């Protein structure tokens, strides 16, 4: 393709809610005929380990063996319903979450609590079985971003995280409204400081650009008007309060509507704008289905959002239960995020020790995703941008050292990686070839070739004849580790 042609084919990706790099580094849009009608298992798309694994991997952080076996005893729609069931809220990481922030802050204590909060959240992800909730909480963290460099009080991060969980698939308009007066958000984007006559447009701009409409759907003057309308908020203690004296109650024209607008009006007007449901639908599509949105499906999802008055649950139910979502072209077509990778690795290997959570938080951070610390207000852009000449070898080495029960630096891990227990979950564990096939099918969203199967078998057998393989043979442990290292070293392991 010539450059000029190329130029004209990339039309305004911002209206699609993508930055250029995201759009261009993620290939072409797909032509998948299946739409949002419910997925009905068929000979072409059977309800089997692959399709059930696809749903569970995308809705959670990879799947456990038990989850896949359970899913296959249910219909796809029953599984989706279970994934979307409301769960009790988890116990807070400590009583400190209700403690008023201290002035001056105790920096060491805050850092310790921040780490505690990260471990707590990471653990919720690892333990998130048969549930979409924690994946969705992360979606919101990556949407309504906040970082611990600017917002240094861990209580505020907990409050925001708790709001995400309470409103996880509730009403998106209500969640957006809640974010306006969320203490962490008020501090992170300076709306805490925005007052009549002294505007600070940081929050208003990102609200329009990154949270609801996307560039190109509003003007600079809408930023000015929204900034004025969003004045008045202050963080006091653990809460936010509206201070009328700080509010600009003058007349503003925002997105074509004129009035003495305040926060609620801004949110109402934004959600009346046709770009808003499209923007949100695209982001959901990219998160759950594929990096390049199918505009036909996005349009239908946006319509669903509007029909449901921005209630998210029915939209998720439709999307995850749809024939479109289950099209096999999408299996393995996403690149794992560091959370898919680290949380997923622990879940696949059956590691749930408390000590493993700190390890997991750090490993994800090494791979450029530290919870509560997105690189910019845009969050982690994800997909192909996760993969660099540094992070791919790091991922391979993290898996390799984990299987050696060592940290990246070579220190012993404070928990065990019981590969024999892992192997015993496979009924084929005494038949080498079938075992290799089954393990590969469980760990990889992408099928391996015959040559790869031979190579993996070689890693397991280390020269021994196939018939001699027994899981209770001496050294079986080491050999299973070699097999798992080889599988996690494959580029295929980075796909989900």
């Amino acid at each position, binding site marked *: 393709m010539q*450059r000029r042609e*190329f130029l004209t084919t990339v039309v305004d990706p911002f209206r699609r809610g993508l*930055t250029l790099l995201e759009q261009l580094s993620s290939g072409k849009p797909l032509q998948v005929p299946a739409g949002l009608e419910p997925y009905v298992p068929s000979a072409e798309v059977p309800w089997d380990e692959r399709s059930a694994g696809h749903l569970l991997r995308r809705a959670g952080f990879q799947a456990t063996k038990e989850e896949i076996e359970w899913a296959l005893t249910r219909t796809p729609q029953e599984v989706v319903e279970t994934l979307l069931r409301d769960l009790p809220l988890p116990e807070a990481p400590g009583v400190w979450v209700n403690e008023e922030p201290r002035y001056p802050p105790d920096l060491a204590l805050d850092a310790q609590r921040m780490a505690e909060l990260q471990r707590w959240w990471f653990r919720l992800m690892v333990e998130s079985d048969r549930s979409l909730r924690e994946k969705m909480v992360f979606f919101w963290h990556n949407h309504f971003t906040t970082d611990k460099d600017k917002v240094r009080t861990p209580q505020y991060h907990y409050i925001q995280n708790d709001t995400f969980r309470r409103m996880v698939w509730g009403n998106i308009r209500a969640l957006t409204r809640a974010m306006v007066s969320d203490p962490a958000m008020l501090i992170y984007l300076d709306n805490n*400081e925005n007052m009549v006559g002294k505007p*600070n447009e940081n929050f208003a701009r990102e609200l329009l650009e990154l949270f609801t409409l996307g560039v190109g759907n509003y003007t600079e003057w809408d930023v000015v008007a929204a900034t004025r309308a969003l004045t008045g908020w202050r963080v006091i203690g653990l809460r936010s309060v509206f201070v009328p004296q700080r509010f600009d109650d003058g007349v503003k024209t925002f997105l074509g509507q004129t009035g003495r607008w305040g926060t609620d009006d801004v949110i109402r007007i934004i959600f009346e704008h046709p770009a808003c449901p499209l923007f949100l639908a695209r982001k959901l599509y990219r998160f759950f289905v594929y990096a390049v949105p199918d505009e036909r499906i996005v349009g239908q999802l946006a319509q669903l959002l509007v029909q449901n008055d921005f209630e998210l649950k029915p939209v998720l139910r439709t999307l995850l239960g749809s024939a479109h979502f289950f099209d096999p072209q999408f299996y393995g077509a996403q*690149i794992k995020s560091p959370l898919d990778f680290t949380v997923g690795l622990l879940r696949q290997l059956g590691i749930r020790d408390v000590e493993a959570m700190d390890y997991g938080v750090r490993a994800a951070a090494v791979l450029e995703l530290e919870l509560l610390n997105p690189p910019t207000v845009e969050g982690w852009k994800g997909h192909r941008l996760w993969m660099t000449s*540094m992070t791919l070898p790091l991922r391979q080495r993290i898996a390799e050292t984990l299987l050696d029960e060592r940290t990246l630096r070579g220190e012993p891990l404070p928990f065990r990686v019981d590969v024999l227990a892992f192997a015993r979950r496979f009924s084929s564990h005494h038949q080498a070839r079938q075992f290799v096939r089954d393990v590969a099918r469980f760990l990889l969203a992408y099928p391996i070739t015959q*040559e790869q199967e031979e190579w993996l078998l070689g890693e397991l057998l280390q020269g021994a004849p196939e018939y001699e393989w027994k899981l209770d043979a001496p050294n079986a442990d080491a050999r299973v580790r070699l097999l798992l290292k080889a599988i996690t070293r494959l*580029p295929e392991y980075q796909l989900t």
Partner: protein
Amino acid sequence: MKRRQFLAQAVRTGIVLSALPALGRFPAQALAYTPTLSRLRKLTEQSNRVFVLIQLQGGNDGLNTLVPVENPLYYNARPTIAIPKAQTLPLTDTLGWHPALAGFKELYDRGELAIVQGVIYPNPDRSHFRGTDIWVTATDADVFLGTGWLGRYLETLVADLPVGELPPEPLAVQIGGASSLVLNSERGLLGISFRDPRQFYRLVSQGDIEFGGSVPDTPAGQELLFVRSIAKASQRYAEFVRRAAERGTNRVTYPDTDLAQKLRIVAQLISGGLGAKVYVVGIERNAFDTHAYQGGVAGVHASLLQELSDAVRAFIDDLKALGVADRVAGMTFSEFGRRVQENVTRGTDHGTAAPLFVFGTQVLGGRVHGRDPDLANLDPRGDLLMQYDYRQVYAAALLQWFGAPQAQVQSILLRDFSPLPLFQVPTVVGEAPPEEFRLEVYPNPASQVATLSFTLPADGYVELSLMDLQGRRLSNLLHGEHSAGHHRIPVYLGQLSPGIYLLRLRVGRRTATRAFEVVR
């Protein structure tokens, strides 16, 4: 025999290459190599030039960087964060350096740093992300392009490499940060990225991988190819990086800041002989997005400027001590400047035009391009108007620094931009396409005799040399004044070993190269 006579005779009688004593020593194997333009470009004088791009993420506040010390409008607009004149370091009669920029001042005074004022593009975008995309893709505000300007330049260096094949050496290195679109090309990202070279090459998996065969043209198949390409590039380039890091060194102590440590690694890799032509580093995490409490003489913004200026000074001092300074230049950029008026939180909101810096010993330094910012004539949002299009700086880097031909620069930047005079032009300006001088070898491949022909548009000094693919000059076929018109020279290939050779024609400050093969 006078030179002219010799030349005339050579042209008449041809050149007998069997008379060249050294040729037989080159094993044919070493020469039997796919000729690629990238290989050729390595040979030209300017080809070992390196460009360092420093991104200041978040939008640097230009007015508090170069302070308009005589302008009351500046002091009125910034009651709490303005830099008092007495605190600035002198730059011109009307401008002062931010006091944290002592390093930049020193470079400027030594002629190793140039300033371009008021740089942006028409209809500036105030979004960080869109703004950054515009800067790195080098497009108009309303044009969306998926490749970076340096990616497009680097791509021209590997134009004849089959798509999907990796260049023999990494063309670009990004130290830290998320992969930048600036290195993206239609061949994908041209370059590798790592934070620490030692960590990088130690990491690259020792274990082998069975990559499997071809993949179907499905989304997952495409993603798999993408991950494989990264895995292969890491494996392939890790060894280059290891050698360069081990051979390379630093001769000065750098400050203990993030940017300084990144530039230290760049200097180490350059001195170690890594062939990358572009390095990308930055101060990340939107650090320059100083909406609140940005500080004045001291504070957040001051410490960012200090980090930048001290790091670049240490870098240049190191490059000098390492003896490689003359082939390294660089520039800073930030997605936009900031609003003239400070906001209530003692910070500044997103703005437009701002100064940028070009640095290096071969920079035409000690100059300020452009007027002082005009604070009386602002755009409707209260932001500064543009003086220079940022692509005038890019055009200078491509034309003057890399010596890329005009037509190519126009194609890379999509339009013609008049370059600012920022870099010393290398002696050899650029590789012209062989068509320019109609440089031909016939037949090609040849076995006993080949005819070289070329056309000169005007009388001029001509040099015609024969080289091997390692860039060693085997013979000077012609050198001297030559008249305009078409010239044909028979060359007797004699005992030349079979393999591929390069013929390089240099006319004035232009060169053209043609590869040809000798067969038996």
